C-alpha cells in the first residue's frame, strides 16, 4: 500500500471547479513528480493535502496518509499533523520565512510546537537540522536573520523547517523555481539526499520536465484539474501516451526554426546585412561601468558604492542575435538599461551608430529610441492596466509624432498586431483580457511598431509556461527573419539562449567572463563559470542518461510498481 494517496479529489472554490477528480499516490520512500503548467491545479492539490485551501473551497474525495483520511480530521488534529507528518517546502524562500525571527528560532519552533521541549533543547536540535541542510552553525550562527542569507541559503532554512521532525511525506511546491540554476542544482541534490537518508516520500511539484527527469521515480502530469498521465519516470519519458504529455515534452525541448534575414517575404525595412560580419554596430559599448549608491552608513562618510556593471564591452550588429546569460544579480538588466540610455554609465561609453550617448542631442535620443526597443519579462507589469491595447501598443509612436497621421497610426497598430499573431480588433481590449502569452505578444508588438533595428529582450519568456514559451520563441525567430531585426536576448535560461542566439556573452558579477559563437561556447566552454552554469542547468536528455546509469542500483521505484490511479 502506498504511504500517501489522493483518491478522486474534487475541489471547487466558490462553486468554480478547480480539481476534477485527481488521483495520485506516493509510495514509501518514493519521489513523485507532479508536472503541469500554471493553472493546472498542482498547487491546489498540495494545499488540499495540507488542508490549507483558501476560503470558499469545498472538497470531495479522499486523501489518505498511512491509511487515515486527512479530510476527515479536525483542525486541531491537522495542526498536529502539519509539520510532524507532512512537511512543506514553498517556492519563494523570502516570503516563507518570517523576516523578524532568527533562522534558529524559526527551525526551533517546529520542535517547540510539536514536542513541547524546552527552548534550549529546541535550539540545539535546530542547529543539528541546519547542519544537515548544509548550514552548519559554526558558519551560519542560529541568530542570523533571513535577510542576511542568500536565496539558496534561505531555501535551505525552509527545507530544514520541513524536514525538522522527519515527516513521512514532504511536499515541495516549485522549490527551485525562484532560484538560480547553480543554486537549483545544489538544492535538488540536497533534497534527494535528505529523502534518501530519512526514507521519506517526496511529492515534488514543478513545471520543469528536466527537474522531474532528474529527481522523480514516478511522474504524474496534470492539466486543467485532472491527472492526464502517470507512470514510472523512465517509462514515462520513453513512451508517453497522452498527447498533452507529448506536447509538453516537445515544448520544453523546442528549438525554433531560424531563417536568415532576407530569405523571407520582402520586408518594409532596408535589407539588413546578413548577421554580424564587419557591418557597423548598432550599439557599441566600451568598458561600461555602472555604480549604484548603497546605503549611507554614516552622515559623514560617502555612501557605499555597489558596482553592478564592471567594464563591459560589446557590439551588436544589424540582424544578429546576441545572447547575454548570467544569474540573477549579475548586472544583466542594469547593463540593458544603460544600453537603452535609461541610466547613464559612470564609466566607459556607449555608441549608437558611432555617436556616443554622452554627446547626444534630443534628436539623437529620439533616433536611438526608434531604433532600439525593448520587451520586458513580466507580461503583467509591462502595461498600464488603465489603457486599451491599441493605445499601449502605439505608445512608442510618440517618437514619430508629427510624422504620421491617425490613419497611418491605426494601420501600423493593425499591422503589428497581425505580425505577432493577434487580431487588429484586439486593440480595443484591456490588458487583463489577454493571457500571459498574448500579453507578451503585445509587448513584442509595441517594440515592433517604430520598426526598430534592435530589440532588447529582457527575460522575455521566463514568466511563461513551456508551451507558450515555445510559441513566443517561434514568433521571435520568425519576426527576426522577416524584419531583419537584431536581438539582445537576456536570460538566465541557457537552453532558451542556445536556441535563439548566434553569439553569446556570459556575465558574472558585472563582468563578461566568456563570449563567442553560441554553439562553440555551449559545446566547448572555456571559462570555469560557464562550465558550472552548463553543468547545473537542468537538461532533459542528460538527466535521462544519468538516470539510466543510476538505474540498476538506486532507482528505488524499479522494484515497486505502484497501484494504478
Amino acid at each position, binding site marked *: 500500500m502506498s504511504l500517501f494517496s489522493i483518491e478522486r479529489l474534487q475541489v471547487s472554490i466558490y462553486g468554480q471547479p478547480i480539481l476534477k477528480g485527481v488521483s495520485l499516490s506516493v509510495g514509501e520512500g518514493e519521489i513523485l513528480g507532479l508536472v503541469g503548467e500554471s493553472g493546472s491545479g498542482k498547487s491546489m492539490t498540495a494545499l488540499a493535502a495540507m488542508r490549507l485551501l483558501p476560503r470558499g473551497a469545498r472538497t470531495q474525495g479522499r486523501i489518505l496518509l498511512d491509511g487515515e483520511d486527512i479530510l476527515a480530521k479536525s483542525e486541531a488534529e491537522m495542526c498536529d499533523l502539519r509539520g510532524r507528518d507532512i512537511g512543506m517546502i514553498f517556492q519563494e524562500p523570502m516570503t516563507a520565512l518570517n523576516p523578524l525571527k532568527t533562522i534558529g528560532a524559526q527551525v526551533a519552533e517546529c520542535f517547540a510546537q510539536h514536542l513541547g521541549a524546552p527552548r534550549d533543547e529546541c535550539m540545539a536540535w535546530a542547529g543539528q537540522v541546519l547542519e544537515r541542510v548544509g548550514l552548519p552553525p559554526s558558519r551560519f550562527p542560529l541568530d542570523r536573520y533571513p535577510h542576511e542569507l542568500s536565496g539558496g541559503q534561505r531555501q535551505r532554512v525552509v527545507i530544514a523547517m520541513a524536514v525538522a521532525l522527519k515527516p513521512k511525506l514532504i511536499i515541495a511546491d516549485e522549490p527551485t523555481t525562484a532560484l538560480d540554476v547553480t543554486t537549483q542544482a545544489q538544492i535538488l541534490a540536497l533534497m534527494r539526499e535528505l529523502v534518501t537518508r530519512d526514507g521519506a516520500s517526496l511529492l515534488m511539484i514543478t513545471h520543469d520536465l528536466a527537474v522531474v527527469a532528474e529527481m522523480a521515480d514516478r511522474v504524474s502530469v496534470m492539466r486543467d484539474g485532472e491527472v492526464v498521465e502517470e507512470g514510472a519516470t523512465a517509462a514515462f519519458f520513453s513512451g508517453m501516451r497522452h498527447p498533452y504529455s507529448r506536447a509538453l515534452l516537445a515544448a520544453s525541448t523546442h528549438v525554433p526554426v531560424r531563417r536568415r534575414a532576407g530569405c523571407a517575404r520582402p520586408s518594409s525595412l532596408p535589407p539588413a546585412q546578413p548577421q554580424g560580419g564587419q557591418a557597423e554596430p548598432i550599439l557599441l559599448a566600451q568598458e561600461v561601468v555602472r555604480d549604484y549608491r548603497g546605503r549611507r552608513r554614516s552622515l559623514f562618510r560617502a555612501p557605499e558604492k555597489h558596482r553592478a556593471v564592471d567594464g563591459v564591452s560589446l557590439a551588436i550588429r544589424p540582424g544578429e542575435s546576441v545572447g547575454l546569460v548570467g544569474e540573477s544579480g549579475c548586472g544583466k538588466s542594469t547593463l540593458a*538599461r544603460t544600453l*537603452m540610455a*535609461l541610466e547613464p554609465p559612470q564609466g566607459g561609453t556607449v555608441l549608437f551608430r558611432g555617436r556616443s550617448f554622452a554627446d547626444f542631442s534630443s534628436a539623437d*535620443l*529620439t533616433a536611438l*529610441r*526608434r531604433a*532600439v*526597443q*525593448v520587451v*520586458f*519579462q*513580466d507580461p*503583467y*507589469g*509591462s*502595461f*498600464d*492596466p*488603465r489603457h486599451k491595447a491599441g493605445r*499601449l501598443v502605439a*505608445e*512608442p*509612436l*510618440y*517618437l514619430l509624432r508629427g510624422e504620421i497621421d491617425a490613419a497611418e497610426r491605426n494601420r501600423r497598430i493593425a499591422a503589428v498586431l497581425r505580425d505577432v499573431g493577434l487580431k487588429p480588433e484586439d486593440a480595443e481590449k*484591456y*490588458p*487583463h483580457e489577454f493571457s500571459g502569452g498574448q500579453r507578451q505578444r503585445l*509587448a513584442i508588438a*509595441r517594440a515592433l511598431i517604430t520598426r526598430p533595428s534592435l530589440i532588447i529582450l529582457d527575460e522575455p519568456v521566463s514568466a511563461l509556461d513551456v508551451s507558450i514559451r515555445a510559441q513566443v520563441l517561434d514568433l521571435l525567430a520568425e519576426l527576426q527573419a522577416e524584419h531583419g531585426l537584431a536581438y539582445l536576448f537576456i536570460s538566465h535560461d541557457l537552453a532558451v539562449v542556445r536556441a535563439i542566439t548566434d553569439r553569446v556573452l556570459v556575465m558574472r558579477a558585472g563582468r563578461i567572463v566568456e563570449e563567442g559563437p553560441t554553439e562553440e561556447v555551449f559545446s566547448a566552454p572555456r571559462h570555469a563559470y560557464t562550465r558550472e552554469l552548463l553543468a547545473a542547468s537542468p537538461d532533459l536528455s542528460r538527466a535521462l542518461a544519468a538516470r539510466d546509469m543510476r538505474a540498476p542500483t538506486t532507482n528505488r521505484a524499479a522494484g515497486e510498481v505502484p497501484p494504478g490511479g
Partner: protein
Amino acid sequence: MSAVVAGRQGLAARALGHPSFLVGAAISLVVAATALLSFVWTPHDPTVLDIGRKLQPLSAAHWLGTDQYGRDVLSMIMGGAVTSMAVSFVAVGIGLGLGVPLGLLAAGRRGPVGEAVMRANDFVFAFPALVMAIMLRDIFGPGALNAMVAIGIFNVPVFARLAYGAALPLWTREFVMAARVAGKGRGRITLEHILPNMLSLIIVQATIQLSLGVLAEAALSYVGLGVQPPAPSWGRMLNEAQTLMAIAPRLALVPGLAIVVTVMGLNLLGDGLRDLLDPRLARER
C-alpha cells in the same frame, strides 16, 4: 492589476452593497444640500439679532429655537454648513493643488530636487493647523481666508507625501520603463501613467481631509481665528453656547451634533471609497 479594471464594471453594484459608503454618501449629500439651500432660503436671517425673542424653545416658527441674541438656530446651522464646506473644500483644494504636484515632482526627480521638496514638506508638517492659523492671523487677520489658508497649508504635506509614496513604486514598474523607451519625458509619463494610477488613493485621502477640514474649521472658529461674526459658524456657535450650558444645553448640542455627523459622514464616505477604489482591497475580494 487586472482586478482593478475588472472591478470597475461592478463598481456601481458594489457601491450599492456597501452600507458605510451609502450612509456616508447620504450624510455628505444632505450636508451639501443644506449648505446649497441656505443660499436661497433659510427660515430666518441667521445674522439678524432680535433680543426680544432670545432663548426661545423649539416651536413651529423656530424649529430649533433661538439663541441668547434671538437668532434662529436652524438658520445658523444651515449658514454654518456653508462656512464649513467652503473652508474645507478650499483647504483641500490648496492641499491637492500644491501637494500632489510637489509629491509627483519629488518622485519624478529624485536626488537633490526631490530631497529638498520632501524635507521642506516635513518642515511644514511640523506645524499643526491651529499654530499655522495663529501665525497667519498677523498676515490676513482672523477670518475665513485665514482658516482656509492655514488648513490648506496643513493639507499640502499630507497630499505631497501620499503622492510621493504612491508614485515611487510606480516609477519602477515596467510599463513606466516602456514609456521612457517610447521617448516620453518625466512630465508626460507623470500625467499619462503615474497620476491616473494613483487617482483613487488621492480621492480617498481628499475625502478624509475634507472631514478633518470641517473639524479644523470648527476649532479655529471656536478660538476666534475663523469666520468672523456675523457670518454663522458651527465652531463659534459652540463657543457662544458654552456659558449657557446650564440654561440652554441645546445651543451647544445642535452645532456639536452637526459637526459630529458631518465628520462621521465624510469619514464613512472615505472608508467606503477606499474599499471600492483601492486596488489592493479590490483584489482580495
